[in-house]
């Protein structure tokens, strides 16, 4: 696949360890555009859009944030959620200004024990760039898995 200079630069930034330890691509050898395309297909097959998924992630983070890192369960059906913030910020690797609190949200399905974890930057990258990170990256999110955890109760999913 012939890359445009912009795509080449993006790949360089995503693979570099300048912004996060290990980079955003992990051990994934595919080009980021390929990763994005294949993840969007997986998301669509799960009956989901990036807008709806990122909105749900954002809602859960906002619910959990006031509890300062403690689990909230009971009011969320089969899910429990916690959100913990750390000093510092995360920077979006795309070429636009964008810094996000270093806040990590974890959601656990109480029956299956499945867990999914994201940062505020993940929410932004999914919403704006359709990027779930490369396989092997620390905060890689599997599209089908997160949909099955966050939307299990919804009809049509």
């Amino acid at each position, binding site marked *: 696949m012939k890359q*445009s200079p912009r795509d080449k630069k993006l790949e360089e930034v995503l693979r570099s*360890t300048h912004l996060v*330890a290990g980079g955003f691509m992990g051990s994934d050898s595919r080009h980021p555009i390929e990763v994005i395309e294949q993840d969007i297909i997986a998301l669509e097959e799960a009956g989901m859009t990036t807008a709806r998924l990122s909105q749900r992630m954002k809602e859960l983070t906002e619910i959990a944030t006031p*509890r*300062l890192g403690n689990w909230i369960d009971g009011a969320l059906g089969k899910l429990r959620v916690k959100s913990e913030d750390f*000093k*510092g910020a995360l920077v979006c690797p795309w070429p636009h200004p964008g810094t996000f609190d270093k806040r*990590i949200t974890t959601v656990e399905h109480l029956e299956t024990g499945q867990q999914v974890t994201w940062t505020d930057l993940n929410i932004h990258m999914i919403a704006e760039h359709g990027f779930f990170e490369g396989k092997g990256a620390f905060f890689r999110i599997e599209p089908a898995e997160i949909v099955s955890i966050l939307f299990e109760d919804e009809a049509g999913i």
Partner: protein
Amino acid sequence: MIDFLITVSIISSIGAVLALILVLCERYVVNYGPCRVTINDDRELDIQGGSPLLTVLRDEKIFIPSACGGRGTCGVCKCTVKTGGGAVLPTETPFLTKEEIADSVRLSCQVKVRNDIDIQIPEELFNIQEFKSTCTEIEELTYDMRRFRFELVDPPAIKFVAGQFMQLLCPKYKGSGEEVYRAYSIASDPTQRNLIDLIIRLVPNGICTTWCFDILKEGDPVMLNGPYGDFRMSETDAPMVFVAGGSGMAPFVSILSEMRNTASKRSVKYFFGGNTLKDLCMANEMKAFEEQLENFEFIPVVASPEEGSEWAGQVGLVTEAVQQTYSDLSKHEGYLCGSPGMIDAAAAVFIGLGMPEDKIYYDKFS
């Protein structure tokens, strides 16, 4: 429609190519030549242009505090660029107020020295030193928190005020392709001038904390610089409320040591919050401070004690414990250290209980 898309594509492509040419020229062709940095109308540095101001100053052993190591994400490395700094970049604007922009305040990590430049920095920054040290002790405080002791080698001693912080240089390693600096509060007694203790909490996938936890070993050399920061005990007699969580413990250990050294009789209640019992630490040291200080009380608070545990202390959020303890904080001073969320929540509680905003002290980044 197709014409429109073709036009957009052509314009985008031209833009991308021009941007690439600029980047390549900047990297490989442009030579900014010698530039002069004038500091405080007094000191002059003759350097080779092309590097960020923060780096230029650091290379000259002038250390502007920065919590993110120059990534433009903390907004700490501000200085006044009187002339030669160029236009304010979009990466700086989120961290600058309108007044600061009007006063020519810039983020030194984002200002590239391309020509002669005239800057103003606080005189006290000239006192900040770089220290070669050796990590002599690593102590597990909790499952995700460790205390690192660094013995100073060159220079062999430091003078700091309890509450200040240091920057630690994290070298290149497998997970990080470049050196980065990170800021950590000092947790040692200011009278122990030959060493620095830092309490560091592991940040998932954090560049520097991963290095500290996975790679740094006792006996390894470590570069530090500092001390920085205005977070410190005031010189009043007002009763104090400390609130901390996690590695926010660090500056309070130092401040309590200082109070012990000076036989302070000031009233302090220290609320330390953990999510579970596993998050609590340094109970014995806090007990010793309670014995040594006349008016000090340590109040650990656990949000969700493990089932079956025999925890007899306070249960709930640390902010709730403060609310339950006080009805009026208008005569108190508040000191906060911990995660940004905890600091925001605790500051809101202080203000709600009548504490004046200018009596609430914290370093969010330390």
